[in-house]
């Protein structure tokens, strides 16, 4: 480990020096520092900087950036009105990690691409311009949607998938003041600049996440993984689905494990909306979702798996 400076913050403030890095729970950043993937000059410890409450907000809720994943998933209001979020969080990591992990840190967790985490390999995200060893390499858990020739990594988290389906908003504070960013627009696609995971500017810090007024409907989080716990999603689906008179009245679907961001596809939702549920309809929705999907060898199976995951969730959501 390299020497670095450390400062404990009393409150959340914009970052004013390049090379500064926020540390919250540290469950992702410290691992990456040990691996030399991240080498901040200075750590700004925000773990005691307040913003650790869930409060009522414009008919919905506001989750402070430092609320831990464990607290968030256990909150009675979250469990009652946004069960999708609680389920997604509980499907991630382990109890120990969730006790430390924070809402802001979770949104900013970095990809689990094994090449990204190994400094002796080529990775455009870690070292822009060096190449991407995953393209032809071990890429079983890589993206099939929205990839580029520069990077095929996924955003690995669960919580953000739920937040995307719930139309949540990220609240960030920078030198220029506060910005509100829909979660669906917070993470970005790699394009030719995979080094940037999200649209957060260098000076910005996440202060909280807001959830809109609860909506009616079934909320489902389905995470498909190699073992039953403590594994990242191969594919995950967050769904809010409302039936009326045997038709799908409203549907919001977000997918994890498929792309560099939680994936939401308006066309897939449009195909389903207003229709009576049937396996044929679900197939049609999957066709739309996966029309542009591209496997790279190891992850080819995700195309079939995503189709079936969607079918499973829609079947469950529309059953009596």
């Amino acid at each position, binding site marked *: 480990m390299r020497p670095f400076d450390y400062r404990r913050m009393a409150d959340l403030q914009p970052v004013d020096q390049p090379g500064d890095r926020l540390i919250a729970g540290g469950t992702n950043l410290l691992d990456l520092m040990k691996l030399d993937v991240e080498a901040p000059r200075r750590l700004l410890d925000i773990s005691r900087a307040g913003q650790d409450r869930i409060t009522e907000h414009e008919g919905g809720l506001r989750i402070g950036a430092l609320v831990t994943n464990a607290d968030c998933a256990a909150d009675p209001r979250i469990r009652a009105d946004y069960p999708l979020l609680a389920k997604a969080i509980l499907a991630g990591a382990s109890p120990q990690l969730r006790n430390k992990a924070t809402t802001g840190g979770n949104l900013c967790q970095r990809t*689990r691409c094994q090449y990204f985490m190994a400094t*002796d*390999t080529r990775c455009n995200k870690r070292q822009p311009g060096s190449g991407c060893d995953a393209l032809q*390499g071990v890429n079983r858990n890589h993206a099939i949607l929205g990839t580029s020739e520069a990077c095929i990594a996924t955003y690995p988290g669960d919580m953000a998938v739920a937040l995307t389906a719930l139309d949540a908003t990220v609240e960030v504070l920078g030198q220029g003041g506060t910005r509100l960013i829909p979660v669906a627009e917070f993470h970005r696609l790699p394009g030719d600049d995979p080094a940037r995971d999200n649209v957060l500017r260098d000076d910005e810090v996440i202060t909280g996440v807001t959830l809109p007024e609860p909506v009616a409907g079934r909320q489902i989080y389905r995470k*498909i993984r190699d073992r039953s716990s403590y594994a990242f999603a191969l594919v995950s689906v967050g769904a809010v689905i409302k039936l009326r008179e045997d038709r799908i009245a409203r549907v919001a679907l977000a997918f994890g494990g498929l792309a560099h961001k939680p994936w939401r596809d308006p066309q897939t939702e449009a195909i389903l909306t207003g229709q009576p549920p049937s396996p044929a309809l679900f197939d049609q929705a999957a066709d739309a979702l996966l029309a542009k999907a591209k496997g790279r060898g190891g992850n080819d*199976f995700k195309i079939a798996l995503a189709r*079936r995951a969607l*079918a*499973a969730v829609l079947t469950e959501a529309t059953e009596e």
Partner: protein
Amino acid sequence: MSDSYDTPDQRNLLDQTAQGVIGQPLDRPEGALKACGQATYAAEHDLTNCAEGVLVGATIGCGRVVRIHRDEVLAMPGVLAIYADQAMLRRNAQGTAGEAPIQDVTTVDYYGQPVALVVAESFEQATAAAKALRVDYDVTTDADFDPAAVEYEPSEEADELGDLDRAMDEAAFSIDRTFTTEAHNSAAMEPHASIADWDGRKLTLYGSFQMLKYNVKELADSLGVAEKNVRILSPYIGGGFGSKLGISHDAVSAALAARELGRPVRVTLTRQQVFETITRRSETRQRLRLACDRQGRLTGIGHEAWVTNLPDEGFAEPVTQATKFLYAGQNRRLALSIGRVQLTTAGSVRAPGEAVGMQVLEAAMDEMAEAAGIDPIEFRKRNLPAELPGEGLPYSSRMLTEALDRGARSFGWDQRHQQPCQRREGEWWIGMGVASAARVNILSKAEARVTLRADGGVLVESDQTDLGTGSYAILGQIAAEMLGVPIDRTDVALGDSDLPAGAGSGGSWGATSTGSAVFRACEAIRATLAHKLSVDVDELRLKDGLANDRPVTELLDKDLVETGRIEPGKTMKDYSQASYGAFFCEAAVNAFTGETRIRRMTGAFGFGRVLNAKTARSQCLGGMVWGIGSALTEAMEFDHRTGRLMTHDLAEYHVPVHRDVPAIEVILLEERDTVASPLQAKGVGELGICGAAGAVANAIYNACGVRLHSFPMTPDKLVGRLPDPVGA
């Protein structure tokens, strides 16, 4: 009495003794220490002035080191020295090698191989310096990293009997299938670590090892010093599973550095280094050919396997080991071929041979039974040979039929549907599978010293190790039972190479072999006591510190010290010896996603006398958990372009987590095997894994109708082949 065990000991002495502790499910005496953090593991010894060493791994898969940029790093804070000594280990030692493995780290044989050791005042300084060390390589560009792309050659002469091809042609039913299994890592909880401390020419090494008497030789040979000048202390071990059979990089580099620096040096492998540099179980390709007649009697068995290792390694995963003795069939072909790849040394990982060989054989047996239209349990029972095929040797004991029957009853096998896809609960297909368990039994040379102290207490001493398996408990129980001493007056000292050489932990032979040495030492003490009482030894009754109702202390004016010895003898040659059992698994396969979750498992095992019902059960449980991992999740995944291991930590290499492991029932079948050892006990440490994954594979088929021939059976392999989840 000769040391070698030549004739079965029919006395069953442990059934006549009176203390009543043998077989009892006693706690491990060191268990609480381990659970409370009071057992000092290798890396935890606190030596004054200890310097810290960190190994630097190669960032190429094959080639030579041409330059190490020492100066840059020597200038870093706290750095004391950099070693890239010719004597440093390039590979770790194979089990029971007893000599130095391949040394000299200027050549790189596999990705991540240690090429240098950086020593500094603190661990953090050494780590920073090790990361900063620049190494220039001359890369071998045409090296082979992909087992699927290399040539294979026979590793031993094939074991052939009759005419298998003809048996296949003429069979009423036959199957011919090729399976694959992936490379595995032991992933023991405690990483490999050593602290070396020299006192003049004498080295004391605190390490984590399974077989000290071999490890001393390996270390002495590697360092070029006399064996008598090497002492290894390994009292507590956090799991080994084969990975600590031989010495590895930490031991030799720590010793070299400590000798040069004139102060103790500690070297601990990182978790990634454990994965990258310590023995793997080879991946395998296995072709199974089975032929049977209309009555379901096997007429032919073919088991051919292809495994890999580094060039110049003698070890080849003995995949067909159990196939030799398990089932009948007069036409046979067992063959093993080896290919050479530049990946970490392949060696013994828990149950080498049977672990992956049995899971495949048992999956194939399930297909064969189905093809023949016979219940898989009945099919197995119908095909148990009366004597070892081809050699005519008798079986020492074999509880396979009993295990299948008892297990089936307890598990509720009669609830199983014969056809797949018959039971659906919500999204889940539910199925049941069965498999046999078998693992060769080996008696190994061992020595132990037992002292009946003048105060009536007992001390058992051996260099035997306890990996968490129960050696402390069992050896104490044997001595307490034989000498009629309460267990709380029995002390056991292990894991010190200065003590008499036990058998070591490996091949499931530790408890029975070192236990037999303890038994024999106790017999000598019993003879002395009988003599003092002027009775025949058969009339001796020892219990609770009384010898024929007299306090034993009255008979002792000084400590009675005896050393017991055992060696494998004629009984090993005259019989086929193995432990047996049966696995039952109920698995749920998600009809949409192909995720498999184990719902319950039962294992029934016969392995001679149960020496401690708790530690034996734990071994069986742990083995079955390994079976779940082998069936569903565990795989070392290499980048075949470079040989780099991509699953090199516990987040990526998926061992089962608690939620993957349901309630597991273990049934211990009492048995006496007088051929195996004077204790009438056989090995159990590895039995629980040998076939377990086969039961899982068979349950998956019974659930969803998909026969996969590739382990681990992850959702990606199932998803494209599942029946329509809604239509069915």
